[in-house]
């Protein structure tokens, strides 16, 4: 019966070919708990994908398994925010409780336990995902009786980008309309693509995905690029440890992102958009899929939108457990049904993106800002932020902090002020350091707290805001553990394409493990430096280039941690 419906599903998607490989594998994983050789053979035959490639793809994504798992999959986060707040202990406890010596399935086939990289639930650390249920403040009992308990707090002195969060029903298009929704798309259409791009240039809007690239440059590049078929892609792979802002936007205000994508499609002449949501965000996927369906029903997606000659539709794709798929070209490869390997650049996505067509890829928060900009206009937009970092900026605050959550910054604010706003270090302890910008970011020395959280100030201080992750570590946190956590994260997430990162993330993790267990050997400090700088200098993509960033900053600020 199950098998029958899966075969029907395969027959239905077969004409689309290889691009449907990941959806097919995810569906099989969900239905059967794993992908058997027989199932993989049928998928390969239906989608015309070479069999060896199917194994290659299954092995690449950590949520896909070629061996049976269990009825329930428990994923316990051991990334820095959760590890610092006891995640590793709960992981051990649940293994003991289930009579497991290490990660894997219980003998009765009921539970499958595994350590997981950051699940984007850092504010509720320690956190876990049990099948599709997100859990915060986990205990072994909660893991066995899961009940969604995650309500992320959102703080804003003036709610600009977060205005609808908690105020509207995310499943109601009418609610969105009643709260200034779908005002920006008509504004954009009214002024036309050329003026839109001027408007974006004047606004100074920067990408919120980590690199802070001027959005206008991408859009103009793709608009000018020759070609009939172009794409808009929304990057919702959010997997940077310590970052959960995109989840909060999408779970609470999906239409603002959808409208931003429509505006993008109109500006560059794309009729198709994709939103790629990480596999660990089932609630986001449900919420956004519902938004797509209701937008279609009301004529906001489809043909001749709102009586114009503009056609645009959006397709949601799920990731399957791979941080690297947040890298834009790896994300395209993933949608194309391949292993998520980053491509060599140039060429860039604006001319050779998804399916080698001109493509604009932006972050979730960037699209929400686009909606905001075309609703309130350049001057109002520029009244927030600074000259060089215009508009509102979101920060995900977690770790040893009194009030973890999302913080919207609309006026220049220092890191110290942000920490005070967030109630200071938890339980009144002293601050040890802040990991700013996530795993790919840097440790901040307590002397650096007066840096303003803008691109220009962070840059001048030799720091990076990245995607806005602020992970607070108190004097009681074991920095050696955090460093080892980071080592494991990158070793687990390196795609393996280029040698410096494939080998360097492993060597780095080994040295950081020795550092944690007090078994350093002669020369480890320089070994770690050589590995770190080789990854930074010679790696193919941003993952390897930043895989040593936090470690090298710790070596600079806290050399005593490496003794």
């Amino acid at each position, binding site marked *: 019966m199950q098998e029958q419906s899966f075969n029907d599903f395969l027959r239905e998607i077969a004409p689309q070919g290889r691009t449907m490989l990941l959806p097919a594998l995810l569906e099989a994983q969900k239905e059967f708990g794993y992908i058997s050789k027989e199932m993989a053979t049928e998928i390969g035959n239906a989608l015309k994908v070479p*069999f060896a490639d199917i194994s290659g793809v299954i092995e690449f994504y*950590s949520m896909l398994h070629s061996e049976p798992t269990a009825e329930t999959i428990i994923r316990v986060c051991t990334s820095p925010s959760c590890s610092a707040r006891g995640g590793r202990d709960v992981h051990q406890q649940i293994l003991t409780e289930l009579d497991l010596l290490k990660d894997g399935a219980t003998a009765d086939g009921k539970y499958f336990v595994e350590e997981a990289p950051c699940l984007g639930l850092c504010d509720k650390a320690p956190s876990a995902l049990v099948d599709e249920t997100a859990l915060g403040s986990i205990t072994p009992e909660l893991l066995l009786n899961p009940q969604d308990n995650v309500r992320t707090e959102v703080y804003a002195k003036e709610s600009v980008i977060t205005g609808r969060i908690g105020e509207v029903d995310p499943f109601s298009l009418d609610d969105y309309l009643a709260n200034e929704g779908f005002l920006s798309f008509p504004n954009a259409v009214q002024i036309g693509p050329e003026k839109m791009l001027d408007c974006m240039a004047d606004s100074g809007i920067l990408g919120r995905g980590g690199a802070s690239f001027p959005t206008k440059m991408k859009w103009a590049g793709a608009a000018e690029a020759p070609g009939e078929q172009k794409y808009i892609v929304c990057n919702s792979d959010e997997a940077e440890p310590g970052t959960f802002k995109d989840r909060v936007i999408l779970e609470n205000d999906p239409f603002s992102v959808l409208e931003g994508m429509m505006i993008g499609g109109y500006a560059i002449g794309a009729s198709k958009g994709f939103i790629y949501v990480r596999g660990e965000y089932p609630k986001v996927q449900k919420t956004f899929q519902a938004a797509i369906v209701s937008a279609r029903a009301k004529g906001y997606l489809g043909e001749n939108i709102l009586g114009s000659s503009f056609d645009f539709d959006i397709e949601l794709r799920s990731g399957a457990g791979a941080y690297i798929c947040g890298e834009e070209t790896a994300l395209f490869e993933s949608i194309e049904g391949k*292993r998520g390997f980053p491509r060599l650049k140039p060429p860039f996505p604006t001319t050779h993106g998804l399916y080698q067509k001109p493509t604009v890829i932006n972050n979730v928060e960037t699209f929400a800002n686009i909606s905001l900009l075309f609703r309130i206009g350049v001057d109002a937009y520029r009244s927030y932020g600074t000259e060089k970092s215009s508009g509102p900026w979101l920060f995900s605050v977690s770790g040893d902090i009194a009030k973890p959550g999302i913080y919207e910054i609309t006026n220049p604010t220092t890191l110290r002020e942000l920490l005070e706003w967030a109630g200071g270090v938890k339980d009144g302890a002293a601050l040890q350091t802040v990991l700013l910008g996530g795993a790919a970011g840097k440790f901040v020395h307590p002397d650096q707290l007066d840096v303003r959280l803008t691109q220009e100030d962070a840059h001048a201080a030799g720091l990076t805001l990245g995607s806005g992750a602020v992970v607070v570590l108190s004097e009681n946190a074991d920095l050696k553990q955090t460093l080892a956590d980071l080592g494991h994260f990158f070793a687990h997430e*390196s795609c393996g394409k*280029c*040698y410096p990162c*494939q*080998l360097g993330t*492993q060597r780095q993790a080994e040295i950081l493990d020795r550092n944690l267990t007090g078994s350093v050997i002669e020369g480890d400090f320089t070994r770690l430096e050589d590995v770190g700088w080789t990854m930074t*200098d010679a790696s193919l993509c941003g993952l390897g280039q930043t895989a040593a960033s936090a470690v090298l900053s710790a070596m600079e600020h806290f050399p005593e941690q490496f003794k």
Partner: protein
Amino acid sequence: MNKTFTLTIDGQSVDAPQDSTIQQVLESINKPAPLICAHEATTPEGLCRQCVVEVEGWRVLAPSCVTKINEGMVIHTASERVIRSRRTILEMLNASVDLSEAPELQAQMDEFGADRERFPHAKTREQDVKDDNPFFVRDYEKCLMCWRCVQACGDDIQYTYSISVGGRGFESKISTFFDSPMPETSCVFCGNCVAVCPTNALKSKTEFFMEQGLDYDEIRQEKRAEKKKMGGGK
């Protein structure tokens, strides 16, 4: 009509056709960068990064084999950053993979002063030889993941797609569909993969048997028996 760009390489001014890669220019002045993954028969993927050079004004080093030149580029081929990367890549590789039958890598380790014991207690790719067909063996603890065999099997030569890159990160490997033995895959035993392998990870059965001390007649008998077992027996 082919315009040229002028570059400065280690202080020397060089003119080169504008669609050249850095490596092509380096070859033209007899200063080729060391290569690991690149091969004339396969599409360059820029994997090993052993060919990196420093370009003034660039944040990261540039892989010579896939980087196109620009007018006025100022390149350093032996800066401290370049040498550290090359040496460290070799040291990390040697700690993971058996390079004993890769003479080019041995020569590079000597050239860049790589310490062959730089990473003690490192995890390796040690594993058993896969001996499942009459034509070649797969000794993957010698595999340095240059992808050339996969490319030769696929779009670059044979269009057979019997093998793929599997695993991830350090656990990357060359694999078949559910680890099937080669005779159960689409493999046609063309031998292209063996021909492009730089480390003897893929080795002809004849060479493999010779190393085990078999003589010519014994090898012929062994191979005939294996082919029969496989069911073809050409």
